[in-house]
């Protein structure tokens, strides 16, 4: 379970996150919604210590995340995607997938030279796993393409797909559907259901209220860095402060 308590992020006098507190239950799909600048992506960045929190606590299964480095946080079982596709442009699609594979840790030079073939065996298994995933979405012919040569939709797809390369507990997705055409949205929705079915807890930031209503079983509404409502989508959408801040747009 993820517990967020009194989380603050202040940058140069600006309160980006303000005494934020909420829980995320294991196995749930929690939507993080709010107007632009509400602090949704900032919360992800604070959780991964890309922005250091000004105060408060974030605990996953009782382990404090504040003060840990991004790689340590990842090792606790948290994976994320970014709002703009962050595939690494000048490495191949397959390499992008493999980079998310946690069996790589720790790969050091001793293992590279004296691993006795264990490393190459693991490497081949992970390659097979990545190829199966690529085939599932019809991108098997792209494994050797540089990621920069993919279309926007394909990049988004690969970014979601590589979440499967790591047995994470908690997945943070940032606008996985934005800018996608309906066919692609359908594919990614299917992948999200699979992620949840495999026992992962999901949080995602999304602007499309229909998708939020369809997918999420819990919704947290942020405005100007503060939580203004929480509950099921049906519950929060009737709240006047939510309508005023966001839904009424």
């Amino acid at each position: 379970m993820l517990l967020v308590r009194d989380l603050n992020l202040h940058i140069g006098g600006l309160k980006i996150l303000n005494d934020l507190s909420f829980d995320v239950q294991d196995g749930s799909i929690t939507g993080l919604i709010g107007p632009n600048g509400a602090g949704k992506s900032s919360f992800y960045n604070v959780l991964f210590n890309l922005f250091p929190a000004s105060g408060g606590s974030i605990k996953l299964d009782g382990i404090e995340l504040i003060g840990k480095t991004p790689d340590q946080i990842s090792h606790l079982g948290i994976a994320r995607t970014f709002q703009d596709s962050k595939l690494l442009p000048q490495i191949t699609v397959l390499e992008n997938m493999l980079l998310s594979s946690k069996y790589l840790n720790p790969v050091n030079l001793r293992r590279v030279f004296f691993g006795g073939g264990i490393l190459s065996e693991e490497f081949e298994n992970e390659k097979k796993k990545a190829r199966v995933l690529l085939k599932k979405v019809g991108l098997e012919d792209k494994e050797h393409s540089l990621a920069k040569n993919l279309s926007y939709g394909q990049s988004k797809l690969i970014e979601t797909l590589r979440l499967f390369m790591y047995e994470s507990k908690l997945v943070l997705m940032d606008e996985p559907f934005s800018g996608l055409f309906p066919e692609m949205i359908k594919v990614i929705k299917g992948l999200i259901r699979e992620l949840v079915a495999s026992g992962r807890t999901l949080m995602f930031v999304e602007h499309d209220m229909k998708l939020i209503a369809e997918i999420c079983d819990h919704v947290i509404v942020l405005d100007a860095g503060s939580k203004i409502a929480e509950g099921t989508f049906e519950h929060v959408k009737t709240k006047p402060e939510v309508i005023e801040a966001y839904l009424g747009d």
Partner: protein
Amino acid sequence: MEYILHLAIVVTIFSILAMSLNYVAGYTGILSLSHATFYGIGAYATAILTTQHGFSFVPSVMVGMVLAAVIAYLASFPILKLKEDSLVLVSFGFSIIMFNVMLNWTDLTKGPLGIKGIAAPEIFGLSFFSKPLFFALVFLTAIVTYFFFRRITKSPYGIIIKGIRENRTVTAVNGHNVLRYQRSVFTVGAIFAAIAGSFTATFLAFIEPKLFELMPSVLILIMVILGGMASLKGSVLGAFILILLPEVLRFLGLPPSILAEVQQMIYGLVLILVMYLRPQGLLGEYKI
């Protein structure tokens, strides 16, 4: 034949330098301008230890490697704290400091006078004084260097360091300790530069600080860029072209007084042409 062997040795030594810098700059994205410093550390270790302390070649190379590793590891803290342009400038600053140490610590390095009389390598009683034998030794080292870096870059380790080159944040979020990898790469690259330095010292029999100042660092970097970032074969090709190209000038009858200047202009021109016409280099895929 002597002349061709001489060139072959220089090309091979620079191939080792270019491959090791490619590991640092082309694969990992650490655009360092201090590679010649570690080259110099290896050269001075071998020169000082063999001429003044009775060391034989192999132990002197090992000391040079350890020294380069320790200095690179310590230097990696300030250098790798920064990114991109700032990192380039800090590595440049580091090379200026180290050049001045070589120039002014005269008790140790004999300063601008340099160290002469460095003997040819001798390993297990076999002297590598003759050029063919010396070439064989350097060539074998270059082959080992190639396969060493090939093994790393083709392994999962290679994917992680290329990930770091592309985006440090994303690589860290994917669970990789970016700084640890960068420090390791920077240190290993320096060790191989030091090996090349030891060969240079014994090959020339004389070294002086200006062999290890900024310009050689830039030259090695141009070799890497010309051959192709993240391409080991490209680095060998880059060394081959940039060592041999200026040699053509000798046959054009240019006066010796302007030869060095024209040589440097050629390096500059090659860099400009590559950046405009083929930014990924001759054999590379990665564009700066």
